[in-house]
Structures are given as structure tokens and as C-alpha cells.
């Protein structure tokens, strides 16, 4: 699941300032789940922007709102044709993917991001989200007992804990578990500690030249037009 965070009201107000008619566009998938840009958040942002406007007496904006099931596919955006044509800008509360897909679908309308796309993760509990995957393109989870040191170790190191770990927590953040302590404990439990004794060479960053593309279709070759 992609986890995002809504931008501050100040920043949102700043980016929409030049436009009168603003469509607040929610996304019904990942950002709904993480409470950053679903229908509820769109409505709340709408209210907040109106209050801000009432307070500052610069009532220039005219807001409308809409939430589609997903912004990251053109087909879900077709229903927006009329709505988008009536506004001066679209503030997309989707992840960075959605923002770009909307922009690509409606080339004549400025599309602005309303959230910061943060990471890929899971809900630890209600209202708490933890990063779990860095999309490094070179998965090592088989060797690390299913716990990703690239993501969950603040240094992303591969050969064991640094000396900063204390009480099983990370030196960078005392609330954060030390990934390597977790890995050690789980490998011990699985009786696979030999995996930790092994030397792991530096990571291969070549697997992530940006932008990446994955093709699963048999009839199309990889690479080529990435635009």
C-alpha cells in the first residue's frame, strides 16, 4: 500500500492561489486507506479551505470536489472530463502517480499535488503507518528472515547492526525497532543464524535506473519509450 500524507494547508493554499476554480480530486484506493486523500479527507480539506478563505476575506476560490476509485489509470478519469473542463486547476490528493496520470490525461489543465507520497507500508494499528519496502529492486528478504534491512535500518546496511542499537531500538529514533536486532532474533528462531554470518557485498544500485518499467506481456520488449 502506498502511504501518503496530506500537505499542510498553507502549502496547499499557496499552490492554488493563482487559480479561481479548483477541483479537489480524491482517490479511492491507497490514499483513502491511509487517510490522506479519500472522500472524507477531500470533504475535510474542502471545509478547511473554505474556513481559511472566510477568515482571510480573500474569497477568490470556488471549490468543487470529487473522488474517483483510482487516479493511476486513465479509464477511471474519463468521468472527470466535464468537471475538469469547468475548473482552472485540479488539486489531486492522490499519490505522485495519480497526480501525473491526471496531468497526462488532461494536458490543458494544471494539476497540483495535495499530498506528499511518503512510502510503501502497512498499518501498524489505527492511524499509525510503517514503511516496509523501499522498492530497491533487489530483494534480500530471503536472507534476512523476511525483515528488510534496506527499509527498516536507517542506514540500510547489510552485514549486521551498527553499534548504535540500544534496547533493541535504533540510534536515529528510540521509538523505532533496530531492524538488525529483529533479523537476528527471527533468524535465531528459524535456526538460520548462518545467514547472518555470511558476508553480503555492497548493493547493486544498477537495478534501479530511473524511471523503471516492468513489462509482463510476452509480445513487448522491455525498455524503449519510457516517457
Amino acid at each position, binding site marked *: 500500500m502506498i502511504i501518503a500524507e496530506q500537505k499542510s494547508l498553507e502549502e496547499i493554499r499557496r499552490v492554488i492561489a493563482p487559480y479561481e476554480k479548483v477541483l479537489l480530486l480524491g482517490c479511492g484506493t491507497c490514499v483513502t486507506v491511509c487517510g490522506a486523500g479519500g472522500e472524507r479527507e477531500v470533504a475535510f480539506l474542502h471545509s478547511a479551505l473554505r474556513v481559511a478563505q472566510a477568515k482571510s476575506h480573500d474569497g477568490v476560490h470556488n471549490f468543487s470536489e470529487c473522488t474517483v476509485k483510482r487516479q493511476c489509470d486513465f479509464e477511471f478519469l474519463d468521468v472527470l472530463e466535464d468537471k475538469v473542463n469547468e475548473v482552472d486547476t485540479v488539486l489531486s490528493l492522490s499519490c505522485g502517480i495519480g497526480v501525473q496520470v491526471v496531468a497526462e490525461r488532461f494536458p490543458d489543465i494544471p494539476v497540483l499535488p495535495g499530498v506528499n507520497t511518503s512510502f510503501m507500508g502497512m498499518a501498524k494499528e489505527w492511524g499509525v503507518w510503517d514503511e516496509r519496502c523501499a522498492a530497491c529492486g533487489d530483494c534480500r528478504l530471503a536472507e534476512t528472515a523476511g525483515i528488510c534491512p534496506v527499509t527498516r535500518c536507517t542506514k540500510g546496511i547489510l552485514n549486521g547492526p551498527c553499534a548504535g*542499537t*540500544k534496547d533493541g531500538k535504533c540510534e536515529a529514533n528510540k521509538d523505532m525497532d533496530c531492524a538488525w536486532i529483529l533479523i537476528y532474533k527471527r533468524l535465531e528462531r528459524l535456526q538460520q543464524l548462518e545467514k547472518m554470518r555470511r558476508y553480503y557485498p555492497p548493493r547493486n544500485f544498477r537495478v534501479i535506473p530511473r524511471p523503471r518499467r516492468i513489462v509482463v506481456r510476452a509480445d513487448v520488449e522491455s525498455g524503449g519509450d519510457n516517457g
Partner: protein
Amino acid sequence: MANSLFEEKLNSNEFLVTTEIGPPKGADVSEMVHHIDLLKDKVDAINVTDHQSSVMRFPSLGGCLLVKECGGEPIYQVTCRDRNRLALQADLLMAYSRGVTNVLCLTGDSVDVGDHKEAKPVFDLDSVQLLRMARELEAGKDMGGNELKGAPQFCLGASVHPEADFIEPQLIKFEKKVTAGARFFQTQGIFDLESLKKFMQYASQFNVKILAGIIVLASARMAQYMNDNVPGIIISQAIIDELANVEKGKGLQKGIDIASRFIKTIKEENLCHGVHVMAVGREGIVPDILAAA
């Protein structure tokens, strides 16, 4: 054969004493030079820290060159926090070419604990990989497998944390560092000699020299602060209590007493191969400690 004076001493059975100097935040190195002069003849080598605690400073390699210029024996601390593998290799070549051959290979503190929290943490390599990379350079190849014109030679060291609250994974990593080519280890601060003894029982099976880290504390408050905020520091309650029980203004003296007592004991009981004295910003007191020990 030895690649440095320090390595020669490592090969002897001498009790080794090293200390460390933090370079200044700024271009004025006069105080650092003063400290080098003060210490160079009283210790076997001087570490120069590499943006310790991720606080941006004068570079450690530059500091090492100063030590050299002053006639001292530097140990070049290299961390992986700020440089990718290209920069790290280049810096090591540079160091060797200037006669800086003692290299302490470290992972480096997290960017979050320092004064540039928004910087990009690099960590392209970790400490074990850094050691291996240095060995590859010695063998005349860079990490891409390309031939080097002129191979460097180093005396490689690393750190170990005998007082870590969860020791087993630290020992695994220690062994990896030994295998990767570390000749000597400077430990994190030792505040309980029992844990040092225990660690040495285990470490003596490896052909490496262990220098016990001695941190000089100036007060109970400082001790508590370091405990809470400095990565890799675990100060025992006994030490904090000892510091807390002295009159006001006598804290530093007590800290010096404790440090010299530790050094003396380690030396007399032959607990390990030497000590590494860390005065954390009070480099000037190191001679007093050594004198008292």
C-alpha cells in the same frame, strides 16, 4: 612487514595507547594543532574523527595530514555516511599517497543525530564492505574490478561494542570485520571491566589487537546525557553514581580518576592490548589521565 609505525607497534607486544581528536567546526585549526602537539609524543597514535555524531566539521583526512605535519601518527577514521563507493576509494588512495595508512573503518552515525538532519544518508557501503574494499585496493583492484596504477597499503582497524545490551549480533559482525581484514579494534566506551574481560575471553581466539575505549566523563549529567543521546554509549549506573557523589566542580577530576583507574587496571591485569582514550572535546586533559595511569 608493517605499513606504519603504529602497525609496527601492533606487531610488538607493547601496551598501546591511542587517543582521538575532533577537528574544528571551521577553518581555524590552531587549537587542533595545539592538541596534536600536546599529545603526539604521549600516545602511539591519534585518531581523527570523521564528522563525529554526524556534526559537520573539518575533514578527518585533513586532520590526519595535520597530525602528520606535526610529526604525529594519525589513524584516519572513515565513515560510509557521506560518501559513496567512488568517493571512499578516492579518499583512501589520497590518504595512502600522503602517508596516512592507519584507517579505522566505520559505518558512521545516523544523519538524524547530527546537525544536518535533512542531508541524504549515503551508506552505499557498510563497515564490513569498507574493510573489504580497502583490501581490494591493496590487491590492486578497485570495486569495479579495474586495475589500479599503484596499489595502496593500509593498516586497517574497526570498532566493536563489547558492552552492547544485545551482544550476539555484535559478535557476529565483529567476526565479519576480522575476516574482512581488520588488524586492530578500538572498542566503544568501556564502563564495566567485567564485560571487557568477558569479551576478551571470546576475542582472544582471533589474531587481532583490542584497544579498550576509555571515555572521560566530566559529570553525572554528562554521563546521563551521553547515555540517552550518543549512539553506542551505555554507561553503567555505578559510574554515574560515582560521579554524582562528588562535590560540585570536582566532577571532571573524578572523571579523570575513573579513566586512569580503568587504564591502570587494564594495563596491570593485562586485560587487553591497549587503550583508546576519548576525551570528547577535552583533548587537553589526556596527558593528565595518562600520567595518572
